């Protein structure tokens, strides 16, 4: 509910946020293992603030991904001595990401072709 109020016109819709969370997480994890807070910061940075997750909601998704075997997780102590749960992409996570990539690219390519005439100056 508080989410809707947070949306600005340039921000991703709720449906797109929900659909893109898993491929985004998997893609960030291909850069190396990470933890929740760092994952969110990375996505915010890469999207120039256009993808803003309601931060706490990421964790149930991560736990679901862990249960599905898309990621592996491990509790470790951080430099600051704080306990942190680190996530790593698994082999089946890489396969799932390859599938996602095909699908997102298919949508992207199609939309790009359709929008091309409009974006070109007459």
């Amino acid at each position: 509910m508080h989410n809707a109020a947070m949306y600005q016109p340039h921000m991703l819709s709720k449906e797109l946020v929900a659909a893109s969370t898993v491929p985004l997480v998997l893609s960030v994890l291909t850069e190396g293992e990470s933890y929740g807070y760092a994952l969110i910061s990375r996505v915010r940075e890469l999207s120039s603030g256009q993808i803003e997750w309601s931060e706490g909601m990421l964790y149930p998704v991560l736990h679901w991904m862990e249960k599905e075997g898309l990621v592996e997780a491990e509790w470790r102590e951080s430099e600051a001595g704080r306990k942190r749960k680190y996530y790593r992409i698994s082999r089946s996570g890489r396969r799932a990401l390859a599938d996602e990539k095909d699908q997102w690219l298919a949508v992207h390519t199609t939309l790009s072709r359709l929008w091309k005439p409009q974006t070109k100056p007459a």
Partner: protein
Amino acid sequence: MAGGAHNLEQTMETSDETGLNEVIGRWRAGLANTGTMRPTDLDELEAHLRDSVAELMRAGLSGVEAFIIAGRRLGTAGGLTTEFAKVNRHEIWLTRVLWMVGGVTVAVTVAKLSSAMANLAMLAGTQLGLKASALGWFALGTQWAVMLGMMAVGWFGGERLFHRLSAAVVQARAHSFLTAVVVLVALTLATGITLGSEYLTLNLVGHSEVSSALIYRSVSGMLMPLVFWPVVVFWLLRCRTRVSVG
């Protein structure tokens, strides 16, 4: 003067740190009370919150100010509860069942112990030479005294006992097999103690035919919880495997 100012600054910093830990503690307890999150979920959310607070404090906010903003970014308790409840559905159910099992065990043990004490009072009463209604009143009085005593313990030690029971439930989730054994042994023993004391009482009072009949009831009474052993053990083992995957 400079030293004094420094001290004041230090004191303010410490009180901010203490205040921050206090509000984080309260925030965590509030989420824990929703019953939808595992202790590790709370650890993970708290680590996130503290990372977020640290970053905001580097930007110049006070601890408590940073907490307010970081908490807002993390999400409302309502929103978090809904999302966590979806992935922890099984866990939540297991916790509820464990609370029920704990409640039943406590209630049955209290009831059985008080009637065992009443039986022992009857035994003591016959030794003191009490007869008929005097003996009955004596036993009844003892039973009520024991019941009220236990209720008083529950009432005055309520909060501490509740925390003990909460801790036991957390432990029980990790050791489901042991829990099943402990609960069933406790129920069997409680039944056994009561019926055993009834047997002794009736036998000493002189109703040996009734007391021998009671042996069969004792045995069947003690076997009753045994009927549930395979069911409970199977069910809890199944829970354990599923939970460890999740």
